[in-house]
């Protein structure tokens, strides 16, 4: 993380020069909305896939929408959905979702440092709820301090894409020919394997090795040792992460 600190210091001195003019007037709600629009476009179809998965799972539309409203977390929601499907207990769901979303803590740590000071209770919690991979990667491109209206605009746009996509996907599932319904079950896996392929392209073979280790371990635990899906997931994910951190040296990998 220390390289981030350096970066911030540099920006800090820049801010002294331009603080009153450019930087402050730029980061408006409208700017957040503009920069959030590509995220909206990206989230919408993915959320549609989630809506389809929910329908496949037997949820009603308000439950699917509530899922996206309260969670607002791509892989976390897909994980929770597949755990619900496999009959996991609540503790398994809680631990698994907590771990897969733990990266938001690191993103939030950096965001909260760059955010303008003096944002109180409820507003702060709402802004925290809007932390996602994409929102983070767009917001941190700005010099601190990042203004509250800007971040709110950015997050709200992304949020609307995610929630409306879920509803539309669910409705699309209702008009889907019944012959296609079974095939839709593959959506979840197609989504994860696509993510994996894109991570592999961006970060190299280490990604594949780690995923291979966790996939093999998970298959072993479930198929041979008959362990619950949630616990198997947690054990496989943690083991592969530790192994990965051990064989990948510090500078080679930046998540």
């Amino acid at each position, binding site marked *: 993380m220390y390289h981030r600190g350096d970066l911030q210091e540099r920006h800090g001195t820049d801010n002294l020069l331009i603080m009153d003019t450019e930087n402050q007037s730029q980061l408006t709600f409208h700017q957040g909305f503009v920069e959030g629009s590509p995220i909206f476009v*990206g989230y919408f179809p993915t959320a549609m896939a989630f809506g389809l998965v929910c329908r496949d799972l037997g949820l009603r539309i308000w439950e699917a929408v*509530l899922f996206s409203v309260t969670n607002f977390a791509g892989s976390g929601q897909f994980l929770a959905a597949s755990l619900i499907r496999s009959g996991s207990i609540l503790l398994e769901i809680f631990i698994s979702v907590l771990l897969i979303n733990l990266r938001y803590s690191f993103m939030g740590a950096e965001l909260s440092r760059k955010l303008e000071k003096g944002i109180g209770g409820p507003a702060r919690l709402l802004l925290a709820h809007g932390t996602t991979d994409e929102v983070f990667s767009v917001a941190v491109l700005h010099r601190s301090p990042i203004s509250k209206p800007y971040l709110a605009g950015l997050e709200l746009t992304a949020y609307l894409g995610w929630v409306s996509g879920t509803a539309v996907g669910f409705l699309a599932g209702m008009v889907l020919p019944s012959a296609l319904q079974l095939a839709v079950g*593959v959506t979840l896996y197609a989504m994860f394997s696509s993510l994996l392929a894109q991570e592999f392209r961006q970060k190299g073979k280490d990604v594949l090795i780690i995923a291979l280790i966790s996939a093999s371990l998970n298959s072993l635990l479930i198929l041979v040792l008959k362990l619950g899906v949630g616990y198997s997931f947690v054990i496989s994910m943690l083991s592969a992460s530790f192994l990965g951190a051990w064989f990948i040296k510090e500078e080679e990998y930046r998540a």
Partner: protein
Amino acid sequence: MNTNLPFIIPILVSALATFLVRMLPYYVTFLDRLPPFLSRSLRLLPIAALGPLIFPGVIMDFHPRWYAGLVAVMVSSIIAYRRNGMIIPILTSILVTYLLLL
């Protein structure tokens, strides 16, 4: 899931877990001072999660035609590797699965 438990319970449990990790950094600062090994491991979690999210589920879900899902995710991986975006790989894999299940 226990079938008589309404869906809203696991949905809210999942929401709670997500909300906790999101609000944590706004109230504590120790996240910046974790030992490097631990911090590196935690950053690898999302990658390590992808393996078990796909296997063995993709094979078990389409039993007895286990190959249907497997071929579909291979197709979607190849498409996603070559171009950005999720919707084309996902739609293609649904189509492939559909054809294999006919």
